[in-house]
């Protein structure tokens, strides 16, 4: 398994790095990875279906106990069939979709391969942390794929929106996974299944994990990114945003539900969110004119359906979920492919412009594939989608005897009616009479698509029909997957016709109501439009997302304006007060007895000079005079060192003072000679207060620091260093030996800082070097967030 992930990585990076020359053929190279995966999975299938999962394990971060545990059980096999099977078809389809080379195509193919590898990692990981890493990699690759056309601001905005929402959810999920892993004592899903943890903390962790799953699977209220992501090329939409990536959330819920469905608020949360998503998605799909958006909202609805099936934690219902995940993968990918074909050949996917389409020659295969797939989506017998829906209804009728079960069943029936209606809208939209007469007819003389272009959707339609008529072909896989999720369960065989039961009756109701809804589509549309006008005041999730972004921008602007208000005196006051006054209490508490302040008369003169020069620096009106006064303080300090018997320190202090005075003068040339006191009257007392506070704090600090080690028994550090200086440091100047030997690392750090400071000083002195560079697009432009935050000039 590991080599398959590596293969995806190598092929993906190879195409991205050197694929420019390949052009369209990059998709042929990209097909190698899913093809190898499909072949490998096929050879392992029989063993896996017999209940013997293939496992591999690699140590990754051993210190944290993080390993990459890969495990191919029957449910993972279902997902691998989706990821790599559809991935292979997408590669073929892309050859038709991208009929001409254009820049960025190879990158698309490469990232698509990387995505396929990441998605394989998600479904094969048996270890929660590794799963999370692959999960995030799918988010990142999805971001790159949505924004592949990087000159299109809408594509960039949609990509950002997708990675924001799934990224935030991913972070929540990471926290949740860690809580669960710590509580359970293991991060391996297969071990958690044996002995799941419970408790209030685990409950909180599960809510976090569900947030992650909901964002990834575009559940309400996190669904806005999925329709926006439709700006991506259609192969990407068909692959990531219908068949595979958006199912990652559902997949995780399916994996965890057997252990945690009855813990805390899991089931209530899943039922409410899943049901709302299924209904809202269906209602919105019915209002779309853009075929891709119609399918996107349909996907949202179907993902809510899957949540309802997997989330309750009952294997009868979950079995229906497994069938639905496969059936949906087949019909939705095929429908997206059809939309891509229509879009490619006519230049539009607006159903108001597509009337009379069926008259065009050479489109029979497309039409058949579209009708079959849409019928499967609508749940018409004898197709695969019908079996899924039948099984779901049967599961809820027979085993939905939990709180909210009946309500969920009602929602499923209602939303399925909507599903029927939007499936019909899709078919009629392309081939029927939805078109408005006053629009240009663009579809009659459309060019017939090539065989490579149509082939993949036909293959998927064949699968839809085949598994519908002869479900026995796939029965083993589905029963095996159910048992993999729920060990010890006894799933019922998958059948096209399970006798005359309540589920069949409900299916009939759905179809009849769906037909009625389709016939009455004009009044229904009016009704929806009016209801939607009423709801105008309620913000949509898209508006909510933008509002969140805007408020983040506004808040950060305000915070920046408050905290960084550009006043140098305030910055200085905040910095020095924080550094000195905050630890003051701690230092003062350490102060027991005051030392003798004047040890020799030699101390008096330098200190007197220091005090006088310090006061003078405050009083004089000329900047350079003040700098010289500060220099005098420094020289007097050097004198104090000499009096204390530290010639080395005195020497250093003396040289430093000389140079810094010179540099001071160099820089002060650029400023006015004297201070002009335009500050308000309050400023002077405040300055005196700050200066006084800092002075007191430093004084207390010096006193308590010199006492700090007086009550420690160990020999004092200075004594140790003096003793070791000659024997170990080979030098009799202790200060120098400390600098170059005992504390040599510090010196290394300091000279590095000097280097950085020198570069900083030079670049400060030469401003405006980059003024002519064109500015890149700012984030606010892309999202049209409005007011650009105004930074102070110095921070730009």
């Amino acid at each position: 398994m590991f080599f398959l992930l590596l293969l995806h990585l190598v092929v993906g990076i190879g195409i991205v790095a050197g694929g420019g020359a390949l052009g369209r053929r990059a998709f042929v190279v990209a097909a190698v990875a899913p093809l190898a995966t499909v072949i490998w999975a096929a050879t392992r299938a029989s063993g896996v279906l017999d209940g013997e999962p293939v496992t591999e394990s690699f140590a990754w971060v051993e210190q944290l106990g993080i390993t990459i545990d890969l495990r191919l059980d029957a449910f993972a096999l279902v997902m691998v069939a989706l990821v790599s099977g559809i991935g292979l078809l997408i590669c073929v389809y892309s050859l038709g979709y991208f009929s001409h080379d254009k820049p960025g195509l190879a990158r698309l193919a490469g990232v698509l391969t990387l995505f396929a590898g990441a998605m394989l990692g998600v479904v094969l990981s048996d270890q929660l942390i590794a799963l999370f890493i692959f999960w995030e990699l799918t988010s990142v690759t999805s971001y790159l794929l949505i924004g592949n056309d990087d000159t299109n601001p809408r594509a960039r905005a949609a990509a950002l929106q997708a990675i924001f929402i799934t990224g935030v959810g991913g972070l929540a999920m990471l926290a949740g996974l860690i809580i669960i892993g710590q509580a359970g004592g293991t991060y391996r899903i297969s071990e958690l299944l044996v002995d799941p943890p419970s408790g209030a903390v685990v409950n909180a962790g599960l809510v976090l994990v569900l947030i992650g799953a909901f964002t990834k699977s575009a559940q309400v209220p996190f669904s806005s990114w999925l329709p926006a992501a439709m700006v991506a090329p259609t192969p990407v939409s068909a692959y990531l945003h219908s068949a595979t990536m958006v199912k990652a959330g559902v997949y995780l819920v399916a994996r965890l539900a057997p252990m945690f469905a009855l813990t805390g608020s899991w089931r209530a949360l899943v039922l409410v969110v899943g049901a709302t998503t299924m209904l809202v998605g269906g209602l919105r799909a019915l209002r779309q004119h853009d075929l891709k958006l119609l399918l996107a909202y349909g996907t949202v609805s179907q993902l809510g359906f899957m949540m309802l099936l997997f989330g309750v934690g009952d294997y009868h219902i979950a079995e229906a979920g497994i069938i639905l995940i496969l059936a949906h993968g087949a019909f939705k990918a095929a429908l997206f492919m059809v939309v891509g074909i229509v879009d490619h050949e006519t230049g539009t996917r607006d159903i108001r412009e597509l009337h009379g389409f069926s008259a065009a020659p050479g489109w029979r295969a497309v039409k058949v594939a579209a009708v079959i797939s849409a019928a499967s989506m609508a749940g018409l017998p004898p197709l695969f989608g019908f079996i899924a829906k039948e099984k779901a209804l049967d599961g809820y009728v027979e085993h939905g005897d939990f709180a909210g079960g009946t309500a969920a069943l009602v929602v499923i029936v209602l939303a399925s009616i909507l599903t029927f209606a939007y499936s019909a809208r899709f078919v009629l939209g392309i081939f029927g009479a939805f078109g408005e007469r006053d629009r240009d007819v663009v579809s009659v003389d459309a060019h017939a698509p090539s065989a490579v272009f149509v082939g993949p959707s036909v293959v998927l339609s064949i699968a839809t029909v085949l598994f519908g008529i002869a479900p026995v072909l796939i029965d083993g896989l589905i029963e095996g997957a159910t048992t993999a999720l729920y060990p010890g369960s006894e799933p019922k065989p998958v059948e096209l016709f399970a006798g005359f039961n309540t589920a069949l009756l409900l299916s009939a109701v759905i179809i009849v109501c769906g037909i009625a809804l389709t016939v009455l589509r004009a009044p229904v549309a009016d009704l929806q439009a009016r209801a939607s006008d009423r709801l105008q005041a309620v913000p949509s999730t898209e508006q909510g997302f933008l509002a969140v972004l805007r408020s983040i921008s506004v808040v950060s602007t305000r915070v920046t304006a408050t905290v960084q208000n550009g006043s140098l005196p305030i910055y200085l006051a905040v910095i020095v007060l924080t550094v000195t006054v905050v630890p003051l209490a701690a230092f003062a508490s350490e102060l027991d007895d005051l030392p003798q302040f004047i040890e020799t008369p030699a101390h008096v003169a330098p200190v007197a000079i220091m005090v006088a020069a310090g006061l003078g620096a405050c009083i004089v009106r000329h900047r350079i005079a003040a700098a010289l006064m500060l220099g005098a303080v420094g020289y007097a300090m050097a004198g104090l060192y000499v009096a204390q018997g530290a010639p080395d320190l005195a020497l250093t202090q003396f040289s430093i003072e000389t140079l810094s005075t010179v540099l001071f003068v160099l820089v002060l040339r650029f400023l006015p000679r004297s201070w002009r006191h335009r500050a308000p009257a309050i400023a002077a007392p405040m300055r005196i207060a700050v200066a006084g506070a800092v002075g007191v704090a430093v004084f207390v600090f010096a006193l308590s620091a010199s006492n700090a080690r007086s009550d420690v028994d160990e020999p004092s550090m200075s004594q140790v260093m003096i003793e070791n200086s000659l024997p170990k440091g080979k030098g009799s100047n202790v200060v120098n030996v400390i600098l170059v030997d005992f504390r040599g690392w510090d010196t290394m750090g300091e000279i590095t800082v000097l280097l950085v400071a020198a570069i900083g000083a030079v670049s400060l002195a030469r401003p405006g070097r980059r003024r002519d560079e064109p500015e890149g697009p700012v984030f606010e432009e892309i999202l049209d967030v409005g007011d650009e935050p105004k930074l102070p000039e110095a921070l730009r």
Partner: protein
Amino acid sequence: MSRLVTQPDAARDRRILILDTSIRILYPSILVLAIYFVFSGHNRPGGGFVGGLVVGAALALRYVSGGAAAVRSTFRLPPHVILGAGLFLSAFTAFLPLLFGGTILEHGDVEFHLPVFDKVKITSALTFDLGVDFVVIGLILMAFAAFGEDLPDAPDSSDDGSDGPVAPSGRRRWRVP
């Protein structure tokens, strides 16, 4: 260039003969002192840091008499090269013992006899200190290059765009008191 136009006569009274002459004597002596500090630092007051600062003081004198051009012409190497070489020298000395199985910053020493100096002991701490010395010198050179200014009559005061900011015209420039 506007400075030259607005203050054509200012250059002439800028030079002070006593200062220039004494600097001619002082400058080499200070450099010798700096070298002494670096080499004696391990056993007596001094060291690379102080040595660098003393060189800096000598450069300040040169700046006073000859402006930024004089400082710039002091060393053939550009300041950033001196700076980088210093850091490299120190880091190299620090990591060299690793090659011989020692620990980082372990110092070795050699003792030998020279005709005049008799017994001379050199430890590898000296190269480390020399690195520090170079870094300080480089830093000071860069500071002068960044903030210093050419004398108006200096031969290469033409604004080549690479050295130092131009003082805003109309402001008073610093003068030797």
